[in-house]
C-alpha cells in the first residue's frame, strides 16, 4: 500500500523537494492539526478590510462621477453607463490588486507550508463556504475572506466557522445580504409612508446557508423556512459599501468594510424556522438559528459526506460517512475531532486511482516538488488558474467547485496540464533531474512503467514534463 504517497497527496499537497521522508504518516498528519499557522508571513503581510473597502468605494465614486457626466446615461445599460473603459480599468485596478495579492499569498503559503494537510482543509472549507469574485463588490474581499473567516476557524467548532463565514463582508455582499431589508422594518415602513418603493427582502443568503452550508439540499426545509430565515438575517450588513438608507444608518465610528447590525433594517418579530420559534433579539435572532443549524443531524451528515468525498472518492464509503457524522454529532461539530477520525479511518488509505487532483492541487504539488521556481517572475497567477479551468476564488456559484473526478478529468484539461508541464520543463528541465525527483515525489507509488518512461525521455526537460503528467502525479 502506497501510504507515503497517500499521506503526501491524498491528504496533503504533494511532497516538497526538501521534505524529509514521512516515517509515520498518521503521526505526521495528526501533528499538523496542532502545528497549523493560521497567519503565516505571506498572509499576515496583506492589507485588511478597511483598505479593501476603500478601494471599492473609490471605484464606485469614479463610476458615479462618470455616470453623472454622461448626458444620456438613462438610455444605457448598467454596464455601459458613462464609464470610460480606460478609467474603469484604472479604478478597478486597486480592487483587483487586493485579489491578485491575495491569490499570490495563497499560493506562496500552500507551496511553502509544512502543514499541507491543514492547508488542504482550508481550501476545502473555503470551497464549502464559497464566495465568487464574479461580483465587483466581492473581488477585493475574496482573499481576506479565506484568511480571516476561514483559516482561523478550521481548527475550532463548525458553528464558529459557519458564523464567521456568514458574517464576513464577502459572503454578505456575494449573496445579497448587505442589501436585504426587513419588509416591515422601520426603514421600509418609513419609505412606504412616503410612497417610495422598497428596499426589501432578499432570500439568497438564507437559501444557500440551508442548501449548501448546513443542512444540504432536499433535507426537508420549506420555502417558508427560507423566507423566515431571510427575515431573521435582516439588519446584518456591511459598513461603507451599501447604498441609500442603509448607508445613512451606519453606526457612528463604523469603519468601511466592517460587518455591522443595523436594528432599523431588521424585520421585527418572531420567526419560525424548522418548526422552532426564534424570538426577536436583533442580531441574536439569526445567530441562534445559525447555532441550531450548525449542530443539526442533517448538517452533520452533509459535512461528513463532503469531507469523506474529498478525501476518498466520488461515492464516499458509507461507513466512513456514518463514522464522521456520528463524531460530528457527538462532539457538537468539533472539527479537529473530525480530522482525527478521518486520519485514523481505513477508507482514505485505500490504494488505487480514486481521486483526480484539481488544477489548484496539481499546480501546488508541482511547485512544491521543484527547487527552482516553476513559474517566471511575471507570471499572472490568477490568469494561470483561469486557464487551467479553476479560477482562484471564482467558482461562479455559491456551491463552489464540484468535487468529483469528472469535474477535473476532462480531455481539454488534461491537455492544458501537459502543455503547462511542458512549458515549465522547457524553462528549468535542464537543471532538474526527473529521474531522481520521481522517487521522491511519487515515493511508494512510483511504478516501473512511469520510472522507465521518465528514464527513456529524449531530454531532461521531457522527463520532467512526463513526471508531472504521469498518472500518479495527476491523481491523489
Amino acid at each position: 500500500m502506497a501510504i507515503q504517497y497517500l499521506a503526501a497527496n491524498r491528504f496533503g499537497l504533494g511532497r516538497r523537494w526538501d521534505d524529509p521522508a514521512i516515517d509515520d504518516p498518521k503521526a505526521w498528519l495528526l501533528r499538523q492539526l496542532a502545528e497549523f499557522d493560521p497567519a503565516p508571513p505571506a498572509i499576515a503581510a496583506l492589507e485588511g478590510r478597511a483598505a479593501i473597502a476603500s478601494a471599492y468605494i473609490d471605484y464606485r465614486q469614479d463610476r458615479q462621477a462618470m455616470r453623472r457626466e454622461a448626458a444620456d446615461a438613462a438610455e444605457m445599460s448598467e454596464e455601459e453607463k458613462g464609464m470610460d473603459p480606460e478609467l474603469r480599468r484604472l479604478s478597478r485596478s486597486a480592487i483587483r490588486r487586493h485579489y491578485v495579492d491575495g491569490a499570490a499569498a495563497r499560493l506562496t503559503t500552500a507551496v511553502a507550508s509544512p502543514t499541507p494537510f491543514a492547508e488542504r482543509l482550508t481550501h476545502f472549507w473555503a470551497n464549502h463556504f464559497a464566495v465568487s469574485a464574479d461580483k465587483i463588490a466581492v473581488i477585493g474581499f475574496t482573499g481576506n475572506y479565506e484568511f480571516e473567516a476561514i483559516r482561523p476557524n478550521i481548527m475550532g467548532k463548525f458553528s464558529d466557522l459557519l458564523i464567521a463565514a456568514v458574517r464576513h463582508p464577502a459572503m454578505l455582499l456575494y449573496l445579497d445580504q448587505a442589501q436585504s431589508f426587513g419588509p416591515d422594518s422601520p426603514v421600509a415602513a418609513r419609505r412606504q409612508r412616503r410612497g417610495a418603493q422598497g428596499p426589501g427582502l432578499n432570500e439568497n443568503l438564507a437559501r444557500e446557508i440551508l442548501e449548501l452550508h448546513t443542512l444540504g439540499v432536499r433535507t426537508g426545509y420549506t420555502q417558508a423556512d427560507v423566507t423566515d430565515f431571510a427575515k431573521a438575517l435582516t439588519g446584518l450588513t456591511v459598513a461603507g459599501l451599501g447604498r441609500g438608507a442603509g448607508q445613512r444608518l451606519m453606526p457612528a465610528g463604523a469603519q468601511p468594510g466592517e460587518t455591522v447590525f443595523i436594528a432599523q433594517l431588521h424585520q421585527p418579530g418572531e420567526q419560525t424556522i424548522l418548526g422552532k420559534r426564534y424570538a426577536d433579539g436583533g442580531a441574536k435572532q439569526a445567530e441562534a438559528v445559525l447555532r441550531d443549524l450548525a449542530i443539526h443531524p442533517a448538517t452533520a451528515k452533509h459535512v461528513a459526506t463532503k469531507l469523506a468525498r474529498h478525501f476518498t472518492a466520488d461515492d464516499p464509503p458509507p461507513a466512513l460517512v456514518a463514522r464522521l457524522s456520528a463524531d460530528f454529532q457527538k462532539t457538537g461539530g468539533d472539527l479537529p475531532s473530525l480530522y482525527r477520525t478521518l486520519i485514523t479511518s481505513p477508507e482514505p488509505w485505500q490504494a488505487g486511482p480514486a481521486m483526480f487532483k484539481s488544477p489548484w492541487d496539481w499546480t501546488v504539488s508541482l511547485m512544491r516538488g521543484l527547487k527552482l521556481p516553476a513559474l517566471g517572475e511575471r507570471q499572472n497567477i490568477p490568469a494561470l488558474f483561469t486557464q487551467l479551468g479553476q479560477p482562484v476564488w471564482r467558482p461562479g456559484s455559491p456551491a463552489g467547485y464540484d468535487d468529483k473526478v469528472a469535474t477535473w478529468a476532462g480531455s481539454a484539461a488534461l491537455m492544458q496540464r501537459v502543455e503547462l508541464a511542458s512549458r515549465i520543463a522547457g524553462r528549468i528541465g535542464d537543471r532538474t533531474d526527473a529521474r531522481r525527483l520521481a522517487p521522491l515525489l511519487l515515493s511508494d507509488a512510483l511504478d516501473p512503467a512511469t520510472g522507465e518512461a521518465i528514464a527513456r525521455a529524449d531530454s531532461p526537460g521531457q522527463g520532467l514534463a512526463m513526471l508531472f503528467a504521469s498518472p500518479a502525479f495527476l491523481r491523489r
Partner: protein
Amino acid sequence: MTLTRRTALIAGLGTLAVGALPGMAFAAAPTNRRLLFVIQRGAADGLAIAAPIGDPAFAAARRTLADEAATGAKLDGMFTLHPALSGAAGLFVAREAHVAHAVATAYRDRSHFDGQNMLEAGGTRPYGRDDGWLNRLLALLPASERDALAIAPAVPLALRGALPVGTYAPSRLPQADADLIARLSSLYAKDELLHPLWDSAIKTQELAGDIGGNNGRNGAELGALAASLMAPADGARVMMVETGGWDTHSGQRGRLAAQLRGLDQLVGAVKTGLGAEWSSTLVIVATEFGRTVAVNGTGGTDHGTGSAALLFGGALAAGGKVSADWPGLSAGSLLDGRDLKPTRSLEGVIAEAVAHHYGLDPARAKKALYPEVLA
C-alpha cells in the same frame, strides 16, 4: 425526404430486424444535420426574455423591469422579445426563431444544482441518472452523425453516457510537442480514465486548428468557436455550449441585458459561421427553471419555476411563433403564489424539436431521450 429515406431503411430491414436491432431501427439515414444545445446555468428569467406585456398582471408584478420589455420587438399580441435580443428578433421575422413559454422540466424545487441535473439528465428526480439526454440522442443517429463535443473542460452531464464524446476548451498555452504527446499516449495506454481523455484531447486539438488562440469568453467568440467546430464536414454534429451568470438575484436589469446580448451574439455568430449549413441546424437554448414573477427588494428576482426556451435554426417546425399554453400572471394563477405556472413540459418541447429536426418518430424520440418523463 428524410422521412421517406428513414421509412425505406426500416422497410429494408424488415420487422424482425427492427425488433433485434432497436438502435439501428430508429436511426435516420445520414444527413448533414447539426444540433447545438446551449445551457443557461443559473435559472434564466423567461419573463424577461419573452415578456408577456399583454398579460394584465405583468406590469404591476414586474414594476421597473416591465418598462424595458415595452422597448423590445413585438412577437405577437401577448409577447415582446427582450430588447437585447435584437439579432434574435430578426431571426424571428425570418421564421428562424421560436419561443416556447411557460415551460419547465419535471423539477419543482429551487436548487440550481438539482434543477440543472434534471435538465441535463432528463430524469424524474435529481441525481437519479448519470447519463444525459444528448448522449441518449446520439444512439438514435446514424454512426456518421454521432460526433459530439462540448466546449467545456469536462463533459457536461447532458452529454455523458454510453457513447463517447469529446470536450474542447480553448488554450492559450503553447502546444506540447508531438514527441511528448506520443510518449504520453503510451504511458496512458493502460489507464482507463486517462486513455480515452487523452485520445479525445489529441483529436480535438487537431480539429480546433487555427482557432486555438480564441479564449471564447464573449458570446460572439464562443458562437464563432462553436460554429468553427461544427462547420467542417468531419466536424462535430452534436454540440453543447455552457453559459453561466443567469442567477439575477439583484440588479437584474443591467446584468440580464448583458447576458442576453452575449446570447444574441452567440446565436448570430453560429449562424454566420455555419453559412449554408444553418438551414440544417437546430439550436436549443434552455435553463433549469425560471424566476419569481414579482421583483424582489433588490431589483432582482428569486428562484421560480416556469421559464421560456428558445429554438433557432433554418428549418424549425414553427419558426416566427411563440408557443404557450399561457397560465396568466394574476395572483391566483401563480404556482405557490409566486412563480409562473409551467403548463408544458420542457422535455416534451426539446424532444419534439429534435424529432422534427432529425425526422425521427416523435414518440420514439421522446421515449429514448426521456424514458422516465415522457414514456
